């Protein structure tokens, strides 16, 4: 690689600082948006610099590829519904990993032609290829799971641990081979093995845990980019990749903690067996179902109502209707709050994004720790499209996949009303005993339809 001029290297340094400031900004609500924009500015700076100073051929082709990528990425990002965001982040992460793996493969081609390179370089090249590939296919599988194009339940099969072990061993084996004999064949073999490892890594992860894995794969892509920075002798890539690798690893741990899961349980829990996963189908235990008029009366004459919103609310796009209902109840003198569980929705913080989109006032959004003790004074807990976050199994069944996750104690409210589409279990795939509790009634139907009906009934009271 040609060494860029000094000013270009300084611009790269500025870009690296932008990324640090971006991450810093993103960790506080006030500065988050500005932080993101600073990061984007750094990225634009760095991209412009490499185009200007890189002595590049094929500028036309690069321009076209760049434009196509930017348009696809930006349009995709604009079009995606907020409910689908986790899987889109997974997809973006996957293509990034793929890009890193390709860059390393191309570099390997150059090394092979030059007749070799230092061992460090070759090891870093092998690392980039394998981790980039893992991230690519792993992210694709998480996308398929979250988009429900495949089962969200953990997938394992007989011989899985052996296959997994063999895949890991051959990844290491081919990595060493590549470091000794840098050939393209070894590079492609390594990419294929990495791809296999990526699939095997994500298959046994259950639906509710998938977001943790997205974060982990995000850190993987970061590390792969960092290694490519060493291969290409570009400090910006090394710094940016390492930042993401380190921050992503910590974030993965924080997310797992917020969900009450350990990382090893997330990745390998399904393999240890003993998880008491339900069938994922509707149960036929008797429940009390009710109508919109009864729910309306219950709510309108209550003095304290706590709403537990979940992913079902977002899928039905019922945030706005819910807000109208809450406004109406508040006018009638009912005290209403939203209890937002950290992992309501599909990943930590997702529900805050969705409710903020519906312009729910901040002071009504209460964090789980803060409001949980209020349930025992609540007349009604209205659970809209949520399930796992109020499931007492998290405290009572040690074998359950959500065991240990902090839950909202809706069970302590005088009355519990579930708005649910069906008796299907939540994302974690386990039954919820709260549905069969004596104080619980269920209003079946799409959350938006149900809320519209309840809203109309409250207006007549």
């Amino acid at each position: 690689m040609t060494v860029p001029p000094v000013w270009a290297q300084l611009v790269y340094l500025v870009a690296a600082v932008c990324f640090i400031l971006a991450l810093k900004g993103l960790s506080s609500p006030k500065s988050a948006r500005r932080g993101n924009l600073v990061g984007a500015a750094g990225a634009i700076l760095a991209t412009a610099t490499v185009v200007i100073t890189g002595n590049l051929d094929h500028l036309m082709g690069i321009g076209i590829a760049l434009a196509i990528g930017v348009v696809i990425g930006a349009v995709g990002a604009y079009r995606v519904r907020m409910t689908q965001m986790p899987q889109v982040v997974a997809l973006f992460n996957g293509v990034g990993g793929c890009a890193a793996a390709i860059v390393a493969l191309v570099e390997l081609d150059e090394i092979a032609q030059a007749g070799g390179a230092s061992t460090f370089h070759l090891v870093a090249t092998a690392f980039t290829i394998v981790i980039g590939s893992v991230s690519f296919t792993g992210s694709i599988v998480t996308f398929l799971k979250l988009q429900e194009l495949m089962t969200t339940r953990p997938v394992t099969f007989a011989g899985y641990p052996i296959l997994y072990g063999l895949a890991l061993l051959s990844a290491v084996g081919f990595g060493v081979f590549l470091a000794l004999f840098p050939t393209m064949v070894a590079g492609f073999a390594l990419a294929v093995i990495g791809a296999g490892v990526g699939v095997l890594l994500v298959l046994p992860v259950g639906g509710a845990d998938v977001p943790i894995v997205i974060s982990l794969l995000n850190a993987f892509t970061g590390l792969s980019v960092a290694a490519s920075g060493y291969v290409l002798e570009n400090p910006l890539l090394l710094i940016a990749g390492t930042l993401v690798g380190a921050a992503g690893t910590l974030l993965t741990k924080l997310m797992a903690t917020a969900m009450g899961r350990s990382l090893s349980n997330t990745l390998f829990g399904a393999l240890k067996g003993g998880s008491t996963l339900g069938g994922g189908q509707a149960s036929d235990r008797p429940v009390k179902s009710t109508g919109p008029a009864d729910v309306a009366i219950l709510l309108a004459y209550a003095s304290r109502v706590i709403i537990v919103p979940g992913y079902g609310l977002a899928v039905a796009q019922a945030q706005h209707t819910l807000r109208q209902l809450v406004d109406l109840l508040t006018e009638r003198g009912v005290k209403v709050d939203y209890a937002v569980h950290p992992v309501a929705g599909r990943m930590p913080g997702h529900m805050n994004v969705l409710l903020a989109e519906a312009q729910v006032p901040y002071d009504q959004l209460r964090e789980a720790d803060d409001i949980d003790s209020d349930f025992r004074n609540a007349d009604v807990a209205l659970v809209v499209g949520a399930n796992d976050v109020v499931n007492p199994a998290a405290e009572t069944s040690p074998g359950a996949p959500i065991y240990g996750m902090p839950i909202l104690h809706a069970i302590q409210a005088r009355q519990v009303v579930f708005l649910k589409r069906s008796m299907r279990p939540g994302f974690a795939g386990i039954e919820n005993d709260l549905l069969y509790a004596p104080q619980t009634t269920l209003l079946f139907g799409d959350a938006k339809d149900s809320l519209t009906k309840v809203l109309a009934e409250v207006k007549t009271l």
Partner: protein
Amino acid sequence: MSEAIIWLTIFVLAAFVGVEVISKVSSTLHTPLMSGANAIHGIILVGAIGVAGHAESTPVLALSLAAVGLAAINLAGGFVVTDRMLQMFVRKKPVTDRARPEVER
């Protein structure tokens, strides 16, 4: 100092910075933070453009242009989707007031 050690030093320091800067994030921001970090590693675009610009054979060029496109998706899409998420966190006056008076609370 040998060259390799300098690179290793940068790596280790950057790792500490990465951990330190986000260590106090609240769970509300986990999703946007992940998405923002995801956008940042799209900077592999710089590497992809570099290798594409020095490609000497058609297969290599094709491969590296694919990398440029993919990296650009990661970078542009990542920052845009993060910004969309964070927009939601900013208190704003509704631009399209659907003829419904906003109740100030």
